[in-house]
């Protein structure tokens, strides 16, 4: 019973502490999804928009996910799931992780907690589970908002495509959350965690979106987690199983690295 209570506190405590940020992200995701889908009837079957986009180079269209914009899958990809939603998941993952780890430590609030009978690895693992909980929660919110909006605004797309796309975006968020935990495991510098985490999120997108425009750089696009997550165009094609694994494994590896580093270093005081 004591062990269960201890573990619950290690997970539920930081989860509860992030509720303001979680509520903010929830509102932002819902507003984004609903407002984007609400404009679908205006774009539905629009040949004029497609014709206007055709004036742009094909590679450019693909880089920003704007091909087939008048189709349901093309509209959702270009409006939500090519850039904004995955970037928001990455940003949410980094900010949740930062405030639960480096932010708390930098503020001196780990001093009293880590003086309690808990292992550092249990402490950071508990926080990692709490962060994962928020990302899962946000993925559910996005999924529900998307499916309800699709039904309300007559956007016809297979639920399975939406589910796999949202899950892949959520997993992309866990990779960047894992990265933030790994950096926080090494150093309690919230500014560094945020800048590197958010910076690499953006770099990941740019690598996956722009490298394919160059014959020389195109093969390197596969180094980006964005390519692993969304390279198969999951709103159009069934997502391959390896893509899920390709995101889960580095996320776990980064958290593990963060825990090992955190075990070995000094804890920063206020």
């Amino acid at each position, binding site marked *: *019973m*004591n062990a269960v*209570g*201890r573990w*619950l*506190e*290690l997970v539920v*405590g930081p989860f509860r*502490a992030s509720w303001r940020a979680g509520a903010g992200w929830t509102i932002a995701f819902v507003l984004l999804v609903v407002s984007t889908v609400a404009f679908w009837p205006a774009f539905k079957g629009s040949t004029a928009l497609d014709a206007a986009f055709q004036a742009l180079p094909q590679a450019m269209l693909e880089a920003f996910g704007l091909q087939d914009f008048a189709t349901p899958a093309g509209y959702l990809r270009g409006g939500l799931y090519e850039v904004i939603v995955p970037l928001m998941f990455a940003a949410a993952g980094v900010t949740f992780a930062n405030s639960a780890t480096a932010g708390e430590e930098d*503020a*001196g*609030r780990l*001093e*009293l*907690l*880590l*003086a*309690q*009978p*808990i*292992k*550092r690895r249990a402490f950071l693992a508990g926080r990692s589970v709490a962060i994962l909980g928020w990302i899962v929660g946000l993925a559910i919110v996005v999924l529900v908002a998307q499916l309800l909006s699709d039904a309300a605004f007559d956007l016809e797309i297979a639920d399975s495509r939406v589910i796999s796309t949202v899950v892949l975006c959520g997993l992309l968020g866990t990779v960047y959350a894992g990265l933030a935990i790994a950096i926080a495991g090494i150093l309690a510098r919230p500014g560094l965690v945020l800048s590197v985490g958010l910076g690499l999120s953006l770099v990941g997108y740019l690598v996956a979106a722009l490298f394919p425009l160059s014959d020389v750089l195109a093969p390197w696009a596969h180094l980006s987690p964005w390519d692993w997550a969304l390279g198969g165009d999951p709103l159009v094609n069934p997502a391959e199983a390896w893509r899920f694994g390709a995101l889960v494994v580095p996320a776990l590896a980064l958290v593990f690295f963060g825990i090992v580093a955190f075990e*070995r*270093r*000094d*804890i920063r*005081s*206020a």
Partner: protein
Amino acid sequence: MTLWTGPTYAQGVIETAGLPTEASADVPALRITGLVKDYGRVHAVRGIDLEVRRGEVFGFLGPNGAGKTTTIRCILDLLRPTAGRIEVLGLDPRSDGVAVRQRIAYVPGELRLPERQTGHQLVAAIARLRGGLPADRERELAERLGVDLSRRLRDLSSGNRRKVALLLAFLSNAELLVLDEPTNGLDPLMQHEFLRLAREAREAGTTIFLSSHVLSEVQRAADRVAVVRSGKIVAQGTVEELRGRARQRVDVWFLDAPPTAELALLPGIEDQLVEGHRFAAVLSGPIQPLLEVLARHPVVTMLVEEPDLDEAFLDLYEAAS
């Protein structure tokens, strides 16, 4: 390794008191050997050796930046020593961290508490992490310390936040309390209450490691004291021993002229002044040699100022620097 049979908790009720068992009584509460902690080129702790006995209040005195907090954070395994060895209740805080921290409670000097929680919520969270804390004692301590646990911690003054931290420490029924500047921000009334709580805990068998730069507090509470300066222990002993090392002003009125030649030869005597039959001086170290000289001459009266720990402390600092 010592098998711990100290306090156990179940559903918020302490089943046994935190008294050391016979088997563990021989093991010191804290033993530090050759502790060194460097931060790059900065040498925060330069080789500290000390031993804290079970059931005593041990004062750890020194000015800001002397290495007190660094030493304490090494004890709690929040910092990893560069060199040296620490044993807490016979255990290694690095390899047996959970077992060590189950048996100790800590009040940090720089106190940062979760601001959005209420005092009750913090106590409940720490109780879950420690496997339970006694609810009835929580109410009693809150009343004694005069702190409202229903208020959010961010709405409390720094003094009241410190009371919450002290409440948590005394509530834990730990065998060893590690208190870093525990009365910072407390009013004199609460400082007095803290000393009462510390005495009660000591009487119940708890060991207290009291780090402070408030000399009067240590003087009143501690059985033994270590004075630390620039990362090294410069003196260690009982409060009385430290006091004995302090310089004391001595005034003696002789019936005849003072035996100045004899007195000048005394060890540790300085700033001598002779005015008629009066002899005044400052004496460092034991007073016995002076008394032996006085016994051979008729003395009308004498006055020896009682040195306090402040004086001893400052003298030690001057000597060390």
